């Protein structure tokens, strides 16, 4: 009974905005009528009286009718309906995605402000079943009061979309989507406390998102005491499910700790346990520089828009200043090649000329984009991260030189841990990272997985079934650092299959495989020699027993023989 009630109320709330905003009465009527006809005709095939179908022809809608129903769709509405696109498919994943978005934002903010991140995550159960209060707190720079509502309660609002610089967040959807999910499933607003400096008070906001307008609605706004220098705390109550093991919050935090050894994380589980992930490195990663787009990565439409928006007065200076790797000389060359005067005003360039310009750019040989926009973890820190979280006998790390796909610089890093307490009879565990963020879902759709299974691990003394991951006590982490990681969806779960990316990953895997195989082979050899020794020891006593029996030797003579024989065979082995 209780269940029925809740579904009933849900449909009501959903229906409510429709009636409010619905088009004039006539339109509404037609819609109803047409729906009725559809129902009838659908019944007909199974029905008893086919005659009635003939008599009621469907009334088709006119263009005017349709126009009355056509209206703008807000991003928020779109993503509320399609929340699976953002990683809110089910309660389990919703919990993980919420925490992930919060922690990613905290780490990005801390690093940009040059603060060693201390992040506290807590998941505590609420009174209702399957409801949790998630809190993410950091020691970051805090957020200016005026920005708080938009950052947390407006989708596609952020600082990272328009710039080319390596960061965890990209689109400005994540945390506001998490808030919206909480709001939809529990009706509770998102709560934010933020403090920007010791002398200023902390601001406490309670926000809702107006899904039709994609605008924040402020429920509460007050100044409060918060005894920290600076930082941000986000609280979201949401419908969720807590679990352990694969794709759990714990796994995400552990993997985050591996790829971010400069981070300290504290996690309070719903059971009241506190898990800590200690800091293994005292230095922040080098801040990546922001760069201008590389011409090879720009499409015609974007080029036209850039021409229109630029501040530059001449085409030559536009090319030089708005792109990376175009000197004034090269800019002039491009203009000549396109047959356009380098002095012409960018905003006056016509469609055809833009096309020529676009082709000319792609004809011209350009330097690869600068790579200081990337901040790889580095081999040393990868080793530190792996050693901190994984108990193994052998560790190695490879950082490849930067490479380029579609004009975007990227860099691949691979870390491997082998042996120790890792299970030897299972498939290797792959930890996938994009810009230091662990990817836990859609493993099979990811370019990293594809590179793993298409690498011939058998060459590196590991077992591998056809088209599968290698088997053995192995953990492999693969990190892709890029100004723009090409994800297969907005929920950022898998890296798209660009051949350039797969090639780089495979090169890094092969290099770590070579190092690993040295270790594995050496260990196998040692084990083999140990096994042989044990084998000899098994049978030598029997030779001595037989000789004692046949030659009626004493026990002492027998044990002397065992010693001598062991000697003889040991010597022959080496």
């Amino acid at each position, binding site marked *: 009974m209780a269940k029925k009630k809740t579904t009933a109320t849900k449909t009501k709330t959903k229906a409510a905005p429709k009636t409010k905003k619905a088009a004039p009465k006539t339109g509404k009527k037609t819609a109803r009528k047409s729906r009725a006809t559809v129902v009838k005709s659908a019944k007909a095939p199974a029905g008893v009286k086919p005659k009635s179908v003939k008599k009621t022809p469907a009334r088709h809608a006119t263009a005017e009718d349709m126009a009355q129903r056509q209206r703008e769709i807000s991003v928020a509405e779109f993503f509320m309906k399609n929340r699976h696109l953002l990683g809110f498919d089910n309660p389990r994943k919703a919990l993980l995605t919420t925490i992930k978005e919060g922690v990613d934002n905290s780490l990005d903010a801390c690093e940009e402000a040059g603060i060693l991140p201390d992040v506290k995550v807590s998941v505590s159960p609420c009174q209702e079943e399957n409801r949790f209060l998630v809190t993410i707190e950091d020691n970051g720079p805090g957020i200016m009061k005026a920005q708080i509502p938009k950052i947390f309660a407006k989708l596609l609002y952020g600082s990272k979309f328009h710039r080319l610089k390596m960061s965890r967040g990209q689109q400005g959807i994540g945390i506001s989507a998490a808030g919206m999910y909480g709001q939809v499933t529990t009706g509770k607003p998102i709560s934010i406390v933020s403090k920007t400096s010791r002398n200023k008070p902390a601001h406490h906001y309670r926000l809702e998102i107006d899904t039709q307008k994609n605008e924040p609605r402020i429920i509460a706004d007050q100044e409060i005491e918060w005894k920290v220098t600076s930082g941000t705390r986000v609280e979201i109550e949401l419908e969720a499910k807590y679990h352990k093991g694969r794709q759990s919050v714990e796994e995400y935090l552990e993997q985050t700790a591996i790829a971010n050894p400069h981070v300290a994380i504290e996690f309070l589980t719903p059971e009241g346990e506190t898990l800590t992930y200690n800091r293994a490195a005292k230095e922040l990663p080098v801040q990546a520089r922001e760069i201008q787009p590389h011409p090879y990565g720009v499409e015609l439409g974007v080029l036209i828009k850039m021409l229109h928006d630029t501040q530059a007065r001449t085409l030559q200076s536009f090319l030089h200043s708005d792109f990376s790797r175009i000197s004034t000389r090269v800019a002039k060359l491009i203009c000549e090649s396109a047959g356009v005067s380098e002095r012409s005003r960018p905003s006056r360039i016509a469609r055809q000329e833009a096309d020529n310009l676009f082709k000319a750019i792609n004809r011209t040989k350009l330097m690869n984009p600068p790579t200081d926009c990337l901040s790889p973890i580095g081999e040393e820190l990868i080793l530190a991260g792996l050693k901190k979280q994984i108990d193994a006998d052998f560790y190695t790390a490879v950082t490849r030189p930067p490479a380029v796909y579609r004009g975007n610089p990227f860099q691949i890093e691979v870390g491997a841990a082998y042996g120790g307490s890792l299970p030897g009879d299972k498939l290797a565990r792959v930890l996938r990272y994009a810009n230091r963020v662990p990817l836990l879902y859609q493993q099979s759709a990811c370019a990293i997985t594809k590179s793993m299974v298409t690498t011939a691990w058998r060459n590196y003394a590991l077992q591998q079934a056809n088209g599968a991951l290698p088997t053995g006590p192995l953990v492999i982490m693969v990190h892709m650092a890029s100004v723009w990681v090409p994800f297969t969806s907005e929920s950022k779960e898998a890296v798209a299959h660009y051949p350039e990316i797969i090639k780089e990953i495979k090169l890094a895997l092969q290099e770590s495989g070579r190092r690993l195989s040295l270790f594995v082979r050496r260990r196998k050899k040692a084990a083999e020699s140990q096994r042989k020794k044990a084998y000899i020891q098994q049978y030598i006593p*029997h030779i001595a027993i*037989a*000789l004692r029996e*046949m030659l009626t030797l004493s026990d002492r003579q027998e044990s002397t023989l065992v010693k001598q024989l062991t000697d003889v065979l040991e010597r022959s*082995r080496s």
Partner: protein
Amino acid sequence: MNPSKKIAGQITDTAAGVRSKIQRRNKPTLSFPLRSLTNVTYQPKKGFLQLKGKKKVRTLTVATVKTFAQTLRMMSQAKSLVETDEIMTKREAYYVSKNWEDARFDEQPESDTVIDDIEALFEVNREQLGFIPEEKGGEVAGKLVVIDRDSDTNKPLRIDCTKFGSGAYSIPISVEHLKFETKAKFVLAIETAGMFQRLVKHNYWRKADCILVSMGGVPTRACRRFIRRLSDDLKLPVYAFVDCDPYGMFNIYRTLKVGSGNAAHINQFFCVPNARFLGVTPQDIVDYELPTHPLKEIDIKRARDAIKNDPFVQHYKSWQDAINQLLDMGVRAEQQAFAVHDLNYVMNNYLPEKLGNARQFLP
């Protein structure tokens, strides 16, 4: 010297050799005669396949340490059998090895091979080492009195092989202690139990004055040794009556007459050099218009192999001719095939006709 004491002495010597090598910090070795057809020769004067003397040396290494240990333990077992005049079947030897912990045998063929190795090592037969086979020897009917001993009273036991009715006397595993009396003119060694039954049922031995022996396929060592003793002690000719196919000719008849390549070290005792081949010959197929089957692939392979590798066949032109004739005809015939004419045709016509011309038999 008492033969069993001699064997015990040989075993002790070998063991002492192994020990002294170990004491000198050398890898101990055991050398065995190579047991295969390539390592035998045929000399008609001796009348059996003889080892040529190629040796296989087994050196103690990591790879051979297990077999080496097993061989030595089995040798020790043989020594105690010989010394206590005890016997042990091959199967029992396999079970005794279960006490040897890591050195135990997992399957009987493994322990059988080791026993065969030891047998070859000392160039004796395994019965002399105290190891006896499970298999039974074969069956005998006809004009023969076997004198055995009662194992309790040790009194002589006279066994008249004419008095088994439709049954037969069963050849024991060890035949060395038997004595014989007979008035028969020859021994007929028969391949199949079916043919043997037919001849016994109609008391063919009485009509032809002979001893009938059923070999039941390839004759066991005991069966070969038994026929050999009949041949030696009673000075009786031995005629073999087998199927006309390469298996009957070589696996059965050749083994009976000159022994096998695999156990060449004991052929000396287990062969019947005086045996002759009564039939069925390829020419018989033609003469008696016998129904035939085409030669199987394995038959052809076996026949070609005999011409190429078998020292016995290589020695006798008449055998090479017979094989080539068979290969040309491309068929084989069984000894029961005479039933096409009449059930007792073989008894009333074929055997008397052939026996009337015993000099024509293949060697």
